[in-house]
């Protein structure tokens, strides 16, 4: 999405009728950042600077919002994003083991990206498929019931292959 073409009124929607201009601009920041991230994969400084110019909000204001939420990233991320669920249901069914073995297999820690930008390993708190615990998502595709070493190896293989 092109930042300069972003229309504040269109983004904020109906509710904009009851808001001042400044409120509207502030109101779409999260949404705009989400869109930038959906396009680029993370929030590069240039894009944030452009957004700041476009919305007439200072960079620090935008960063203060972006840095609060867990979902915004300031560094490039891997092609495959593997999220191990550490939600309660998954945790009690042993998702820690899944995380450990992924960390070992790819030699990165949770939250890091492999050097070739092939994959990023993360944890989430519940993806809402607790019935299938322990759950891991690969680019939003859910792999459930990863119990036992065979399933684990299968998971690692499916992350490795393109």
């Amino acid at each position: 999405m092109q930042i300069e073409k972003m229309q504040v009124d269109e983004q904020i929607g109906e509710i904009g009728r009851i808001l001042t201009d400044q409120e509207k601009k502030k109101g779409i920041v999260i949404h705009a950042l989400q869109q930038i991230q959906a396009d680029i994969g993370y929030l590069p400084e240039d894009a944030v600077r452009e957004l700041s110019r476009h919305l007439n909000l200072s960079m620090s204001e935008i960063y203060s919002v972006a840095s609060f939420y867990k979902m915004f990233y300031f560094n490039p991320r891997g092609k495959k994003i593997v999220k191990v669920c550490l939600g309660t249901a998954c945790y009690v069914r042993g998702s820690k083991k899944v995380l450990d073995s992924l960390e070992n297999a790819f030699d990165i820690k949770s939250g890091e990206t492999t050097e070739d930008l092939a994959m990023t390993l993360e944890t989430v708190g519940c993806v809402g498929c607790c019935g299938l615990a322990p759950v891991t998502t690969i680019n939003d595709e859910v792999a459930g019931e990863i119990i036992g070493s065979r399933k684990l190896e299968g998971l690692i293989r499916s992350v490795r292959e393109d």
Partner: protein
Amino acid sequence: MKKLTSIDDLIALRKQLSSEGVLAPNKKRIRVCCGTACRANKSLKLADKLYSEAKSNDTDVEIITTGCQGLCQLGPVMTIQPKGYFYHKVKPERAGDVISCTIKDEKPLWDLLFRRSIGEKPAYFIRDVPFYRKQQRIALRNNGRIDPTNILHYIATGGYRALEKALSTMTAQQVLEEVKKANLRGRGGAGFPAGVKWEHTRKAPDPVKLVIANGDEGDPGAFMDRSIMEGDPHSLLEGMLLCAYAIGAQQGIIYVRHEYPLAVKHLQIAIKQAEDSGLLGKNILGKGLDFRVQIKEGAGAFVCGEATALVASIEGERGFPNPRPPRLSEHGGGPWGYPANLNNIETYVCVPTIIEKGAGWFLKTGTATSPGTKVFALTGKVKNTGLVEVPMGMTLREIIFDIGGGIIGNKKFKAVQTGGPSGGCIPEQHLDLPIDFDSLAKVGSIMGSGGMVVMDEDNCIVDVAKFFLSFCQAESCGKCYPCRVGTYQMLQILEKITSGQGEEGDIERLETLGRYIKSSSLCGLGKSAPNPVLTTIKYFREEYEEHIRDKYCRAFVCQGLGQISLNTDICYQCKRCMDICPYEAIRESEEGLFYIDQVFCQRCKACFSVCPLGAIEIKEQPVLFIDKELCYFCRNCINICRVDAIKETSTGFMIDSTLCKRCGDCFKVCLMGAIKYEKEGKLLRKGIVAPLEVTVEKEEIIGEITIDEIRMDAEEKTCSVQKALTFLEEFIAGPMCGRCYPCSLGTEEAKIRLIRLSQHLDYATESDLQALKRIASFMIESSYCKKGRDTGRFLAEKIESAEEEFRLHISGICPKRECISSIEYVVNPDLCVACGACVKRCKYDAIKGEAAESAAGVLPFEIKQKVCVRCGECVNVCPTGAIEVISRIKEELINK
């Protein structure tokens, strides 16, 4: 789709749908679950297959992709009408069978029917499945029955009928009264009555008001809001519409958690359809109600589920909570200062049924204080996990054992956590508690959003508490101090406990900290964060104590606790543990058996989980200690200890238990058996190491020795120096009282000087002799009593009578051959008959030589001077007197 402009249009549309047979009960129809969990099990592919199979078979069957049907774990699930067969775990490949067998021939597919265990009869129909039998569905009434992306389905099942009723026959005030009368309590957490909240908002003077639905559902382990948003979005819209009508709001916002893309998609479709058909927008159904709904996506922050933080997030700020008042429902409280009504998704979804069927109907279910039903996300160690909706007042036992089917693997139930990370753990003794908002609060937990995580004996309660706390700690927004710092502190303590470093007093520290955090945090997150820890301490205190005192985790979860040992009776040496052990702690012993070297073992428990036979056992750690009564300081243990855990102190040797790895090496080398071990818990629980009971043998009381007796003892010696020394030693040990100086100091000094002489130490000189003379004369002169003066006299006598003898000692010669340091034993080869008697007798192995039958050609006997301690035993035993005592220093040399 045609826009509906009046109530009549809506009624007409519903009539038309029913005449067309939409969702008619007797039609052939497959309802495939396409909720998130089933999608993960390829249910979309299954639905596609079903379509194409039906087409190619030319069968008349309606295929509906529904939202979550509840039994997510056994997905993909489907129900088949008209008979109502219930299938689970349907693979896409089975689509053909389903169509040809069940749809065409109306016969069930045996292997897809649900059965509890292989031996049991299968449940044909959905009403027979125990998971569904006890449920009563109000909030989930349409979930799993309609296609969420089709508004016509919703209308055909009676959707928007409540709106119709409200707009045509009720005033806004009446709608509000009805909700108030139904005592609908908020399903999102605290259970505040929705009607009261609505009234507040209605009373706010502002012309602009908002209706906000809280779909943030950050609670890990809960997913009912998601299922409703995905599976029945129109119910939510209808509930919000009714709220808007009742409080006079114009704008609606649904705040959806970022991790729920499917929910966002379905909500968007639903909003679009509702707008197109005139159910949202301006002048709804011609009744003058204006209402629009928007979706706001969150960005991943648990605290944004809190009302004021949610408002901040909607405004595009950091999601910090703010102090109340103003409350959301007041002027200045909601987003941009407009009053707003915030409710949970499930709360809104209950409203249409209340309006349609009346408050009286709603009050019939549930308990007196909490009417209605509640959706729980039943997860954890139960056989059937998924979404269940039960009337309030059902007992935990019914939910876990009847609906959930009991614990996986028939393990023992331990606890159930309700209310997510802010809730509490409920132990077995409260299993028969009928649950509603108030009863849960009574046992220290909360309803929360309805997460219900079941734990069995394999879950360590301390670890679970740590998990919940670490969640809250990570999610704390950091605005206020007690929550930010306090939760971190608590987490550190728990970390310490679970890694085996726990100390006495930690539990109390946790309790105090927890109380402070609860009472002084700004928002609900901090106020409830200590709950899991506090309730688990309340109900499972002994498990905490076990971690701290016994260094033992009964669930074998916590690393660094317990003693890992390998049971060689079971082990069949597959070497799996050896391969997996990251510390190479598993070794092979000389007998070819495996054992775990405790010094290397880090108690990571990798081997424990890999051993197929369960040969790796985790036991309570013993504590080793040294029995001071038995230890005789041989230092064997110090030398063998690989981690330097044995320390030398002023009172003896001691094992530093923080360093000791309990490898048991010292245990084996201690000849005295002074190293003992005991279960640590036992020792510590007594408070101190119990005093050893030593039975003291009664000593005979010996009367005080007199100077005459001493003199007699002394005179037995031959060497004058020895005589003097014996006298002094016995005098000091016996009658000397130490009252006057010449005697107490003088005798000590005289003794030292005499020892110098007798042992021929290098620094013995003429001055020693002079000093002895002086001491003797002083004592004679100025000792207070006769004993002292006698001693002095004896000393002076000896020196006077044998001055030459004393002087020879200075040069290292004892003419009487009595002072052992000046003599040597030697074997006189002329006399020796090589009988070997002396060799046998010598305790110190100082005599070398071979006993021989015939003396020819054998090594001559010889005494090793370095080893010989001059005990004189050999002299006594030699039959020929071949062992001679000579002076070490040749007298002739001196005389020169």
